[in-house]
């Protein structure tokens, strides 16, 4: 646990010195969300219908933006190799880095989403479910995304390739995340979808750091 915190703290400190990168992803989220009404039309009833989906897709894309950076700078200055060789379990260090990524890229989305949800005329109940769903789902996005980031580390065209690899894997999270809010809208209760999101999170927490570490070792050797 201590190892995870060590890596977490380090990444947060590093990010604090490069605040603009974090903020850019947030701005991206806001801008993308605003594009949809501009493209489709501002009719309130329709916005209510597409709102959850739009917010979720924008969250996916915003998360993707931050992923290439997850391992790239550490790889560039040799820190990643040091981590791999260190006596501390590499997988735990990686888990710490992924946690930092979520705190920097995922959690802000969770906090910002209700505000944007208002733009889509979602009611308080729906906004609440949206936040909860994003709270469960964005860590999954960071965890699965980390696998992609590790696989494409140092590969040319990495960012786009990363998106191609990771977006299909994001589909279940998207379906249940948006589905939770839609269920709330329909008055059906979102507990089923939220439970499944929780299950996906548990699966991701167990398997993703391990897969990411394996992929990193392959990339570093």
């Amino acid at each position, binding site marked *: 646990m201590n190892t995870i915190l060590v890596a977490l703290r380090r990444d947060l400190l590093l990010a604090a010195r490069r605040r603009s990168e974090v903020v850019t992803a947030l701005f991206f989220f806001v801008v993308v969300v605003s594009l949809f009404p501009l493209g489709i039309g501002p009719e309130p009833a329709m916005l209510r219908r597409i709102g959850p989906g739009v917010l979720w897709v924008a969250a996916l894309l915003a998360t993707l933006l931050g992923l290439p950076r997850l391992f790239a700078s550490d790889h560039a200055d040799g820190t990643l190799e040091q981590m791999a060789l260190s006596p501390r379990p590499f997988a735990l260090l990686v888990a710490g880095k992924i946690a930092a990524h979520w705190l920097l890229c995922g959690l802000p989305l969770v906090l910002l989403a209700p505000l944007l949800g208002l733009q889509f005329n979602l009611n308080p109940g729906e906004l609440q479910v949206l936040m909860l769903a994003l709270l469960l789902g964005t860590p999954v996005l960071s965890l699965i995304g980390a*696998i992609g980031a590790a*696989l*494409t580390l140092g*590969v*040319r*065209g*990495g960012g786009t*390739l990363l998106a*191609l*690899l990771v*977006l*299909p*894997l994001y*589909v*279940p999270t998207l*379906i*249940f995340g948006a*589905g939770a809010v*839609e269920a709330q809208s329909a008055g059906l209760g979102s507990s089923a979808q939220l439970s499944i999101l929780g299950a*996906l999170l548990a699966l991701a927490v167990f*398997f993703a750091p391990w*897969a990411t570490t*394996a*992929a990193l070792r*392959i*990339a570093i*050797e």
Partner: protein
Amino acid sequence: MMEKTSASPWMRYASPATFYPLAGKLQPWFAGLAALLTIAGLWIGFFVAPTDATQGEGYRIIFVHVPASWMSMVIYCAMAFWAGIGLAFNTRLSSMMASALAPTGAIFALLSLVTGSLWGKPMWGTWWVWDARLTSELILFFLYLGFLALQAAIEDPKRADRAGAVLALVGVVNVPIIYFSVKWWNTLHQGATISMTKSPSMAMTMLWGMLLMALAFWMYSIAVALARVRNIILERERHADWVRGAVENA
């Protein structure tokens, strides 16, 4: 360098040098089987299977659509299997096999989508139906593209093998989850589901036709994979001594 090992004699073929000629000998047999099964399948499909009550002659597309779907999934599993073996045991040939299977699998996924579209248009009026199977097939196609793109982007063959393997294994674990989520999504949004798989009363002959065509596609896939892996072996082992002899005799 032939090592005497007390393990199974089949282990001999784990080396590209010995597998290359074996694959060359096997390949025509599988191609031949594929041809025969295709003829049999097409015969049943066009001349034995009756006209469908609701869909008329249009339903005959299932004789290629369903086999293509099945093969796209079978090949993905085979690909992940061989990639996993290559990753676990560090055997080059297994990884080469995975890479050899991928393009064929992707083609079948694409054919499944195309034939699915051609089936859907006359039946349900639209070129694309977001039903659970077609949508899952689309995502499977994307998974294939990801694997192919990743391997193409990495120059070092060893890294490409192993990264591809991790991706394929992550993918194969996710496919059931993706399928389940898409199925759920589909039932939620469509109520009375238009299902491409709904064939309430499938005549035995129709099933036979599908089965024969599926086997035909399977034999074809093996034949093509053997041919492709031979090319991969030549490319990657080009500096080995045995390749010289193989090339001269080719």
